[in-house]
């Protein structure tokens, strides 16, 4: 690595890591939106990944290269428990069932001493490297792009545009949706583990309602036509508060307003292009 890049990464390490991690989170939202569902549990899945990975590192002393893949297990199990019953129903049920998840888990983290209680877990080693975060982000973008171009992506788009028509075409709605939710939980869990291992501290208040809405605003601002849109949205919304330091109190107001304005006036998002496919 050239010297200037090393210096740059050292100075802005937190921000550079946050950009990559938030990109992963935006992708995890994108996968669910791509099948016409809304999950408000992305922050909770991220928290589960963060907590389970921190426990594995701190209490069981496992190496990070083992901890990172294992951190998807807890979020995936929760996604299965909530997604399996709700994804058969209309879209509002998944949203309702997941919106409370973050707050509920927060109460659990606070009240269980083994999980650090109100103080959270600290002293997590700084083992998340630049190449891990951006490697995963790159792999996720490429994989989602390839899936999006394939028949699976076509089926997902059909589900999003018209459920009934998709069903008539023989697409198994519940299976595609559950697959999407599991993928998104895994991505969020990985992002949580990487976040925990690049900030040395995690607390119970970091994975509640507000981060969940923030993640949604990443995906909506960027637009969910291609995987690049959400990543762009995440980067804009991560960099913006750094540039507008003075308005930090109003950052969440801003995020909320972005969702309102984008849904009302810019439904396709900033990168509103659709994926190109060969004719079937």
């Amino acid at each position, binding site marked *: 690595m050239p010297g200037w890049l090393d210096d740059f990464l050292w100075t802005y390490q*937190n*921000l550079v890591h*946050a950009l990559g*991690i*938030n990109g992963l*989170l935006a992708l995890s939202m994108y996968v669910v939106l791509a099948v*016409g569902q809304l999950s*408000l549990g992305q*922050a909770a899945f991220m928290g589960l990944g963060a907590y389970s990975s921190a426990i594995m590192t701190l209490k069981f002393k496992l190496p990070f290269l083992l901890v990172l893949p294992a951190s998807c297990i807890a979020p995936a199990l929760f996604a299965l428990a*909530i997604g399996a*019953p*709700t994804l058969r*129903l*209309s*879209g*509002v*049920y998944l*949203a*309702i*069932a997941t*919106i*409370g*998840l973050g*707050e*509920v888990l927060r*109460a*659990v983290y*606070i*009240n269980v001493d083994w999980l650090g*209680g*109100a103080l959270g877990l600290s002293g997590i080693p700084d083992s998340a490297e630049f190449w891990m975060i951006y490697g995963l982000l790159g792999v996720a973008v490429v994989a989602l792009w390839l899936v999006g171009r394939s028949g699976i992506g076509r089926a997902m788009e059909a589900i999003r545009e018209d*459920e009934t028509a998709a069903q008539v075409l023989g697409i198994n709605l519940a299976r595609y949706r559950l697959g999407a939710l599991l993928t998104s939980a895994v991505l969020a869990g990985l992002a949580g583990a990487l976040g925990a291992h690049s*900030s040395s501290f995690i*607390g119970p*208040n*970091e*994975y509640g*309602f*507000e*981060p969940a*809405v*923030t993640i*949604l*605003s990443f995906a*909506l601002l960027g637009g969910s036509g291609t995987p690049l849109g959400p990543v762009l949205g995440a980067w804009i919304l*991560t960099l913006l*508060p750094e540039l507008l330091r003075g308005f*930090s*109190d*109003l950052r*969440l*107001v*801003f*995020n*909320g*307003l972005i*969702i*309102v304005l984008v*849904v*009302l006036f810019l439904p396709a998002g900033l990168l509103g292009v659709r994926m190109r496919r060969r004719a079937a």
Partner: protein
Amino acid sequence: MISKFNYGLLRSQEKVVGSRGLLAPGGSRAEPWWGAGQRPAGLPSPAVGGYSGAMLAQQLVNGVLLGASYALFALGFTLMFGVLRVINLTYGFYFSAGAFVALFLTRDAGFGIWAALPLAAAAAGVIAVVLDWLLLARLRRQGAPELASLMVTLGGVLALYSAATAVLGPDIRRLPPGLVAGAPFEFFGLRVSTPQLLVLVASFVLVGALIWLLHGTRLGLAIRAMAEKPDAAGLMGIDTGRTAALVSFVSGCLAGAGGVLIGLNFNAIQPYMGESMMLRGFVVVIVGGLGDIRGALIAGLALGVVEVLTAGYVSSGLKEAVAFAILVAVLWTRPSGLFGRPTLRRA
């Protein structure tokens, strides 16, 4: 029910770790008011009598009284969904708004609680109509998918809560003392505080008024017709835009009244109180069945009892988790609600 941690510690910790540049700091608000082991004034401590039959009876009474406020809150939410077919997440904000209007009226303007309660409810109703017009009317006209309206209210409510917190501060505020005078009542050795009694009476009155409105007036007929089939209702000469505004107003009033009564009962008011309440609202409307008023009443009372028993015999910090486990269990077994028809409305 004594909380395990102390506030000062948590707050200072949040300040240290607050700004990480990663997502929201999450430390911008105070602990939800029931997480702190707040309990309605004038209740005997459960630790005093030990785990006896008398304590169980007292817990059941407390649970029903708490549940009445949950039912009241969830009623407006389920009405809004039943008629407008929208999960309106700004609903929790009306609850906070009602409590704050009552706080300003009683503390700064010298109103009594009997004048402040209807005024605060009406103010919350007006806020509900304005927000419905700003956020949802346009989507309704376009016939947008239900997730679009859910997302728009989600963004709206985050902006509203954060703006309210920025303006009013995250601190817990208290209503002026002596608003509702009187020592706790005793019935057969069971104690009921005056605010609790007020919640119960007000819930009965408001629920009765709602049922009368829906089933005893022409307006109610229009609302029910619109709930059944909006297009047909429009063709029958019902002004659907005005009916939607009216439903928003009534729901907002119910939420606002709930906010005042619960603020009074727990004597703790802060901007995010509506969000914690929404969690209960979701459990109640899912368990009772989305859009089902009778179901919301029963489920609200039941949730109150379950929460109080969990807090009394297990741990006060885990009552959210228990409520949520019930929500997931109902979704697995009876997704149209405990009292719902077996056929599902698939979108």
